[in-house]
């Protein structure tokens, strides 16, 4: 599961008020380096919830300290900051949480991640 995906995931269990953003408890994290696609990153940046990205990276750094540190807020003209662009692309596309779980902030319901695939299947009583 990439952090890009995590940025949009929320818990839609019945009756959950604020199921976003999901906390990440990583067990295995893999890095698969790929060439930076600058235009792709700049096009998705406006729609991203940056706070969620920042929080996710902070949670992953507890497990894998080689991840880059991101600023707490996005600077204005980010297209000039090459390092930040590269770091953001890396963090969103190249970091894969292979095993672990996602935790709903409101209900603490755990969504397991296995082999890089998060399991968002709801139980009968949660629909």
């Amino acid at each position: 599961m990439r952090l890009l995906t995590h940025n949009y995931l929320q818990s839609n269990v019945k009756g959950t008020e604020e199921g976003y953003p999901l906390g990440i408890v990583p067990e295995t994290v893999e890095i698969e380096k790929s060439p930076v696609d600058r235009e792709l990153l700049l096009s998705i940046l406006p729609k991203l919830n940056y706070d969620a990205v920042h929080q996710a990276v902070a949670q992953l750094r507890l497990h894998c300290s080689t991840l880059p540190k991101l600023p707490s807020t996005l600077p204005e003209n980010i297209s000039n900051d090459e390092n930040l662009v590269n770091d953001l692309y890396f963090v969103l596309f190249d970091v894969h949480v292979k095993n672990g779980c996602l935790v709903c902030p409101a209900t603490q319901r755990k969504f397991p991640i296995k082999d890089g695939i998060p399991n968002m299947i709801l139980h009968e009583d949660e629909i």
Partner: protein
Amino acid sequence: MSRPELTGPAAHFYNEKEARKYDSSSRMVGVQREITERAIELLRLDHSQPAYVLDIGCGSGLSGQVLEEKGHFWLGCDVSRDMLLVAQERMHNQAENDDDDDDDDESMDGDSNHNIKKQRKSTGDLMHHDMGTGLPFRPATFDACISISALQWLCYSNSAQQNPRRRLTRFFSSLYTVLKRGGRAVLQFYPETAEQAVLITECATRVGFAGGVVVDYPNSAKAKKHYLVLSFDRNSEQKRKAALKDGLSSAAEEQQSVLVTGASREGTKKAPIRKKKGVKTKEWIVHKKETQRKKGKAVRPDTKYTARRRPTKF
């Protein structure tokens, strides 16, 4: 040919063996690829801009691969974990073949070579999820949505709790929320009957989508393909905004009625007018002659002798 939907839930049908069979059959791959290309054509995406596309029932990632070739990135969800594992392998193999040019990867079909933008590691991601329970994403996440041969699975209930109409409505209303305004969804499905197609279309339009069904090759039973094309009606958006401004709740939105047009709609058949005793009255005979004329049969013109009581029995 029996339908797989009748055998049980999708997650049970697409087990590991079936998933491998599905992905390795070159005919299946070819057909699915063709359907995906057509669906992408109906989506009218701007291929110069990478779009975030949701792939419902992504299965073994065939459709996701086509999306990537056009330069978009995607998130696929499927209820069968075995299919998703095959998809992962496919994405992994694609990434490995990325570096060598002389590969014999099945994805390098002759006809799609000119469409392939720079092949890079897969920008798709996968999720294990049941579409009938609603999509767990925040609002306006996706630029577009695509679904290949998956939607009909929602029409079959596999347990007492599963109600097809409820699942369909749940799915479509969550799709309405997670698609950004101005986005479009194209969902190819195989309806077993016309009623199923109507049910699916009804549930989609009731939640506020505009659009309808495109049928390719309508005259061939085997080749026929149904594409549900959904978009956001600009007028209804304005009406909705106006209603919200007036303080009405969203539950007071107008229900769009379903317009199902097509040759399959039953003609305006009225019950033949009969007297209580069942005797053939003049109205009935005249009506019957009109019906026959409409069918194109040779019918005598109506005169004063039409339906005259004959003096002797014929």
